[in-house]
């Protein structure tokens, strides 16, 4: 073993506190240090994941108090997989935004990278923690960084988008605290495993109320339908790489939280159907909204919301296959949507409006970026031989195994809509004449490398899905096995 899960939190925090000091020594350090930290964490995550897949989960206790007294971090195959994915994406986002929009000078750069690092740390914390109040704290860390990143540009709309996000976020934290307190007042504990063990003792009405509060609160972060008002604006107004970070990291963490509550903590029988219902509504509404968008990033945002709906539907099957499919979807969505955001923000780099019409004919000027965008678009609609196909196939297989024919039909119908709006953009990039007032911008070398890595990942998974399915199978088995989780956490002495 090379380290413990607590380093995922401690190291970035330490670095964050250090960064203002380091900046005084050499200004470039504030750009370099987050990359070093994330690289280290990625190595750590891969090592730990490797260890966990062989030796079983690592339960890290904090301050020497075993659960349920103290806070604990759980690094098992499921959370470990997500953490690795998040840190990998975080590293790519860092590399991509290293010299993104050169006009950023020292002060904003310091703040940008600080917030970015905290965004990743907060999301990782959400996934790792085994304590519901601690999760609340991490959600707040993530949200505040997200508010700041959304309002990062000086343009007139970014503050508005961010304010909307703050409003929704505050309401989310209110609900979250209420739910936490309802549970605490009944069970006298805040540890997830302990709660899961005792939840059957709880009054069913209170249980349902607290579950609904939880899902409402986390649904705001996870962009579930009636609560996703903030998302398109935040995606559209935030800097391009941040959109990728939202889609790939923050939302994943929130979905993880919902899933943890549904699968492990609560034992409500109807909650799976509830997940399918809200997921389906989210999927349909978001995809029909996406087709009407005129701005590229808003379209991507709605598509991201729709994909999260699909992930929830897949989780809602409640079977191991469903979880596998959902995890596969999350993985592919993280990779692909990041690629789309990355390449998309170069396609509309110099435009103020970021309209879809402004990508017209960009393939002549930005051949590689355009190609990667096209690959991403093909992958996300699930065309073989790209990565998205396998996840779509696994979702369909899981649905068929759960006898959910109607869900299958709806999901496939929505996929056709998705296909239409992505193809429209790809057509514009390749087959339309360039608009006169658009100025293509060559991507920087590091951005290009990042995009190529993601494109290669899409192709790799597309041609050789076995590269990831092994981990996904183990992770899904870990999530479904609730008793093992409780035992692992509470048997510590």
């Amino acid at each position, binding site marked *: 073993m090379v380290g*413990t899960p*607590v380093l995922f*939190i*401690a190291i970035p*925090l*330490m670095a*964050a*506190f*250090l960064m*203002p*000091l380091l900046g*005084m020594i050499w200004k470039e350090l504030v750009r370099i240090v987050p990359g070093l930290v994330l690289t280290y964490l990625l190595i750590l995550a891969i090592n730990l994941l490797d260890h966990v897949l062989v030796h079983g989960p690592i339960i*890290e*206790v*904090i*301050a*020497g*108090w075993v659960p*349920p*007294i*103290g*806070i604990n971090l759980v690094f098992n195959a499921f959370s470990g997989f997500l953490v690795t994915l998040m840190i990998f994406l975080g590293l790519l986002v860092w590399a991509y935004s290293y010299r993104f929009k050169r006009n950023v000078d020292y*002060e*904003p750069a310091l*703040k*940008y990278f*600080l*917030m970015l690092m*905290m965004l990743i740390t907060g999301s990782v*914390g959400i996934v790792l923690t085994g304590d519901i*109040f*601690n999760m609340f*704290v*991490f959600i*707040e*860390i993530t949200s*505040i*960084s997200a508010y*700041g990143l959304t*309002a*990062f540009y000086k343009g007139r709309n970014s*503050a508005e988008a*961010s304010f909307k996000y703050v409003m929704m976020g505050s309401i989310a934290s209110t609900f979250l605290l*209420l739910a936490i307190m*309802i549970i605490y*007042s*009944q*069970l*006298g*504990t*805040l*540890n997830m495993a302990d709660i899961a063990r*005792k939840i059957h*003792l*709880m*009054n069913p*009405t*209170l249980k349902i*109320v*607290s579950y609904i509060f939880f899902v409402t609160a986390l649904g705001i972060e996870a962009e579930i339908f009636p609560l996703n008002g903030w998302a398109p604006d935040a995606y559209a107004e935030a800097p391009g790489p941040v959109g990728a970070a939202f889609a790939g990291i923050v939302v994943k963490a929130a979905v993880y939280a919902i899933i943890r509550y549904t699968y492990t903590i609560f034992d409500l029988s109807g909650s799976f159907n509830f997940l399918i219902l809200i997921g389906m509504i989210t999927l349909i509404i978001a995809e029909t909204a996406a087709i009407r968008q005129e701005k590229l990033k808003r379209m991507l945002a709605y598509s991201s919301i729709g994909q999260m709906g699909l992930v929830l539907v897949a989780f809602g099957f409640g079977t191991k296959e469903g979880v596998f499919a959902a995890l596969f979807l999350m993985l592919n969505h993280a990779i692909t949507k990041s690629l789309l955001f990355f390449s998309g923000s170069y396609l509309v780099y110099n435009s103020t409006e970021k309209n879809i019409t402004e990508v017209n004919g960009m393939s002549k000027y930005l051949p590689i970026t355009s190609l990667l965008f096209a690959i991403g678009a093909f992958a996300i609609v699930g065309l073989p031989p790209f990565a998205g196909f396998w996840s779509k196939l696994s979702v369909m297989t899981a649905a068929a195994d759960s006898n959910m024919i109607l869900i299958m039909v709806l999901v496939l119908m929505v996929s056709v809509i998705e296909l239409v709006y992505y193809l429209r953009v790809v057509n514009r990039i390749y087959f339309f004449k360039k608009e006169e007032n658009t100025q293509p911008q060559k991507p920087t070398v590091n951005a290009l490398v990042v995009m190529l890595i993601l494109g290669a990942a899409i192709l790799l998974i597309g041609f050789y899905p076995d590269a990831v399915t092994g981990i996904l199978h183990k992770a899904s088995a870990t999530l479904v096995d609730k008793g093992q989780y409780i035992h692992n956490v509470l048997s510590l002495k």
Partner: protein
Amino acid sequence: MKKLLVIFLLATLGYYTAVTFFDIGFGQPHFVKGVSPVKDIYLAKTQSPLTVSNAVTSIVVNFRGFDTLGEVTVLFLAVTVLGSVLYKNRHEVGKRSVFFSASSIVTSGSKLLFPAIILLGAYVFIHGHLSPGGGFQGGVIIATGFLLMLLAYENYSVSHTALSVVESLAGITFAGVGLLGFMHGGTFLQNFLPTGVMNNLFSGGIIPIIYIAVGFKVGAELTGVIYTVLHEKGESNG
């Protein structure tokens, strides 16, 4: 129409929240039968291994110290975000908004009060493990002291560099103590100092150290918040 909808929504929400909390009950033990709440363990452990007088402090700093680390980070981030949101290029920085032209009584009074307030704040966070109060409260009190000075003196300014150095050092102390505990005992934030005698100033192991760091950090951060917001003179349209 919208108002009606909102009222309906709120009525539903209010009803369910109220019913839920009336179910829980007030002032009597509300835990489900058969569970042993963690608070009993907290109260017991607060006395014997930790020797901390203030149970809230022991929870905030030790049992749930990780939360506090996160909380400090939230404040740190809030300052960062504030700076980022209100960031202006050098030539844009406006004059500080002036509330009132302070009379000499106010200015000299503030000057007198300022050290006292700082002292009070320091006292509060140093005695965080013995009496009510602690890092947060002490930090806030210190920040109010600076606020007073900023309001009273038009030209009073706090060195931004100094603030961020204090902030960073305090933060590093917190995380560093945690990592020391990790190296010493194998878990993050583990106590590695002798705990001392209950109700002594030097008791509670690492708790006072952390709380002092938190106090400095919160003080610096909140001062930073006030400073940033104060220097935001909006070009009002009349």
